[in-house]
């Protein structure tokens, strides 16, 4: 039974998928069974994590971590099958070429199906999931709010019937801090930092969600390193070091926890994940002590 869902978001290109992997790795070290999932139609994890295959059903990746891909379509299928129950009727619906366009015009339906799947354990709805925590490589910041808003919007639009009922249930669990955690990934650059702060504030005011922030790919040059920069390269490294300091400070002003993760100088994904997971463990312990 899934007791916690971690939603990972950030502006495109900041390293959401990597940090999702890092988070899954970090959580798995705490004796927890983790399901790591992505919400795309075309898998990113398959190539990125070098998996032989990726499916709707989780398949093992590292010890205590399994990986899966939840395309909106698959989630909706599962939801529909659960509701309709009769296989032939369901086939008639989903194998009809026109149905696809109908689903596309029914706004919020995909979002609802995905969030329905994510919250299915605490709502005791749908097939059982084997795992303690979910890590979801979610949509980028632009689409993230519309994802989270879908259940409430749907509940407003449809006050009665099974769908209205379920939408309210999903919305409730999204706002429950014991179940839902949101992780915002950013780089030390203007646009992603601005988007992160805006989203963090919005999540706080609209959903009461206290997000966690991850500042990714930092060069993390120490004052000693900076002193050793040869003059030929000083134009390059000084501004970067300053930006990193400036944006870390800006993010910390939100009062939310900010984890600072270095650019790991490896070209292989697994060593990067392991190294960042260690960095995260140290900073989380520090945060708990503080």
């Amino acid at each position: 039974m899934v007791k916690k869902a971690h939603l990972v978001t950030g502006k495109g290109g900041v390293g959401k998928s990597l940090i999702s992997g890092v988070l899954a790795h970090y959580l798995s070290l705490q004796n927890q069974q983790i399901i790591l999932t992505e919400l795309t139609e075309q898998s990113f994890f398959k190539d990125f994590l070098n998996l032989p295959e990726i499916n709707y059903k989780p398949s093992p990746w590292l010890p205590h971590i399994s990986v899966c891909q939840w395309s909106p379509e698959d989630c909706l299928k599962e939801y529909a099958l659960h509701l309709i129950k009769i296989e032939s009727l369901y086939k008639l619906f989903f194998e009809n070429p026109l149905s696809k366009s109908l689903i596309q015009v029914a706004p919020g339906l995909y979002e609802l199906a995905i969030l329905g799947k994510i919250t299915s354990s605490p709502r005791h709805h749908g097939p059982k999931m084997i795992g303690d925590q979910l890590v979801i490589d979610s949509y980028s910041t632009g689409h993230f709010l519309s994802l989270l808003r879908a259940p409430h919007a749907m509940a407003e639009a449809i006050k009665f019937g099974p769908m209205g009922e379920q939408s309210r249930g999903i919305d409730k669990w999204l706002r429950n801090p014991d179940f839902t955690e949101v992780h915002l990934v950013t780089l030390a650059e203007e646009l992603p930092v601005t988007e992160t702060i805006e989203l963090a504030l919005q999540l706080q005011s609209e959903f009461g969600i206290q997000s966690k922030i991850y500042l990714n790919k930092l060069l993390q040059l120490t004052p000693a390193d900076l002193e050793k920069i040869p003059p030929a390269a000083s134009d390059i490294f000084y501004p970067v070091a300053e930006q990193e300091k400036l944006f870390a400070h800006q993010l910390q002003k939100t009062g939310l926890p900010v984890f600072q993760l270095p650019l790991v100088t490896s070209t292989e994904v697994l060593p990067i994940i392991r190294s960042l997971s260690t960095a995260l463990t140290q900073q989380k312990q520090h945060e708990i002590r503080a």
Partner: protein
Amino acid sequence: MINKLPQTKTIICIGTGGVGKTTLAASMAVGWAQQGLKVLVLTIDPSQRLAQTLGIRADGELHRVQLDLPTPSNQGELWSCVINHKKAFETFIKTAAQKSKHANTTTGTSEAELEKLLNNRLYQQLSGKLSGSQEFTSLITLYQHVSSEKFDLVILDTPPSQHTWNFLKAPEKIALLFNEGVTQWFRDISSHQVGFLQKVMNIGATQVLKILETLTGSEFMKELSAFFKAIQNWQSPLETYVMNCHRLLVSPQTEFILVTTLDPSRLNEAYKLSREIKTQGYQLTTVVINRVPNWLAVKFSTDSQRLNELTSYYRDLEKNLQKRLTQFKTQLKVYKCFDLRQNSEDVRSLQKNFDQLQLVE
């Protein structure tokens, strides 16, 4: 500097998020305007700095950008526009309404009907409130400006999306929505003509509607039905419009430029994308490897471990690129663009960015 095909009238920059598409699109616009062309650059989400440079707000209006460069008299013009999705969709709907008026003067769409449609919840969702149809609105905005023939060249910076396919498939998806069959199903639901409805529809369609109602509830179905009733007269002009958008994408006068970075997983994605895109018949000519650290060329030695780590890391990435190049270069021109870490994005620095683009040998 980067070269385009002589016949090219439209350039579409594609690539995953965070690779610097927007700045590159703006740099190319400045570069080519400087060479004497009248260029329009359409962007989605410019940084504050870039917006200041181009003097633009997200209002969907065209803005003339002063080039202000010490150059000969034959300089072109630079125009810019940030796509306003809501407005673009509204324009699209209104154009369709007007066209249907011309086609059929007796049942043309009245202002009141149009107003009703614009207030329809489904329409509001469609125009970007929930699921977002940025891909489609970018495309219709592009089509609108290319077909106006006011510019020698229109450059589009595509919206950040999970996959470039979302953009390329936009016409197809919208065409499905206005599909004759679907529209017909819904016309009569709200008018309670059950007998008629049953007559025209086969059993399968009835079942499908029933299931959809189970999934969404009857209120939603009413909205859906009202929406399709409202657009029934516009179907054919809308279909033509969508068709034209698709034609623009596959036109020989349209060139795709794929932007990526040195990051190995990005390069891998870019390679896969370039192959898919070619197979589908879009004219992809160029790959730009963006944000290449320019300090790699600087020879220095230091006893800082971190600096040495970083340097050898980026050198490894460059080696990795060399391996990839043989794959890319069979059919494409590959350019690299150095990360100048410029603190401003004024016209001069955009021009500098354009000038330093170099063909990878």
